[in-house]
């Protein structure tokens, strides 16, 4: 019979959550720096460009930048 160490599993879950959150923030940071770099180059900020989960873009932003989306 399997014996689950719930305390360990819970702790592991939180530890993995930390790793995930830190990596996610790093991802945002890369995005943020890229945007800064693009502005420096004189390009307009485009929140749609390079986004992976395109379907979650808020409606107003989607309309505004829809022309940049791949069809």
């Amino acid at each position: 019979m399997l014996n689950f160490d719930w305390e360990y599993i819970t702790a592991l879950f939180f530890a993995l959550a930390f790793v995930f959150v830190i990596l996610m923030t790093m991802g945002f940071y890369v995005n943020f720096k890229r945007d800064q770099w693009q502005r420096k180059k004189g390009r307009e900020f485009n929140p749609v460009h390079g986004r992976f989960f395109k379907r979650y873009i808020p409606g107003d932003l989607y309309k505004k930048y829809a022309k940049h989306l791949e069809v």
Partner: protein
Amino acid sequence: MTDLSAAPSEIKWLKLGFAVTASVTLLAFALAGAFPSEFSSQLIKAIIFFYLGMVVLRALFFFTGTFLQRLEVLRLHRVPDQDFRRPMVSVIMPCYNEEKVIEHSLRNLTELTYPSLEIIVVNDGSRDRTSMLARAEATYSPRIPVTVIDQENKGKASALNLGLLHAQGEVIMCVDADSRLNAGAVEMAVRQFQDPEVGAVAGFVEIVNQGSVLLLLQQLEYLVGLNFSRRAMSFLGVVPIVPGPAGMFRRKALMEAGGFISGKDVFAEDAELSMRLLTRGWKIKTEDQMIARTEAPDTHQALLRQRYRWNRGTYQALLLNFFGLLGSGWRGRWVALHLVAESVVTPVLNFGLILYFLTFYFTTGSLEMFTMWYFYLLGIDILTTTLAVHGKGMLPVWLALTFINKVYYFYMLLTWRLLSLYEEWLGVNMTWDKLTREGTALKEDSAHA
């Protein structure tokens, strides 16, 4: 007027000191986890206990301070209106490209019930119809005089300073164009100036827009982190930041401190001015009845962009006034230590401990210390939230949010703070990154009010 701000060379050394200490600490934590020994394990345990002890002391200070502040406010609110002086108040509203919200904001200000009031709108070189719309709206205000001034685009601090030059009032109130005040905000806040040592009064900020977990998490953060701690600090008169959307200043204090700092060195002019007032021995209080309702960023990108500016701005203000605060009596020292603890020590220590736990797990497979540390902090957070949301209802929702906050939001902002601090230490150029607001939530909010 003596300048108590730190010289550039002093700031350089301070930055270097912070950067080296933080980097060495983080490295030490990672190495301690990677090469565990009896000594390092005992040392880490001692650090964890020290950290948790400080967290408990901090929470106790917040609980006691907030309770005492509530008593103080109740006493102040019981005094009849006629026993208070009603000095003239000048409301300064700087705007830059605010055509979507300017009419609503001005209408909201003209609905303030305070009898002796003037409104000064400073258009900071907007490229849209802000100035025209403000002038048109001003004609609909027969009771309160509204002045609209135009200037070239020079930044918010410069606009506020220009407004200050035109202001007649003994008390100056600064508001943002994208926030709404409650009608009785000024009456109650002015009462705080009965104490001649009070130089500024900070208002409270509430978030108007709803509809996502991210916004709810921000609401929780404002409620517990910002408003709750601010109340406790108010009891001692050491509120470290008078927020941009709702702040009131004694004109004398503002002039003595030299107005708002303009230029590109500080991106949080509100925090910088607050610290400068504290270095000169003025008390800064809060007023529960002065509430600014504002729109919060509703996407991760926008939120982190805003926090980047806040983090670096507060840090710049702290560096500039660090020595001034240390040399200005117990209030200044308290604020300096509080800000260093909140903006530097907490992220470094927290991040360092996470690094330790993770590397320790990879070498030994043990997560015992991590569990203790994590659940202890979560317990304190649950207690703080329960007290902070008392009387607001929906306790289970707030508690669920506390949990999500502890797993995700808190550590996201912590990591972000550390990244912003490193950018500041490295002197990476930054620009004023204004949050784009559509003003929809604010318009709806005004319609319901």
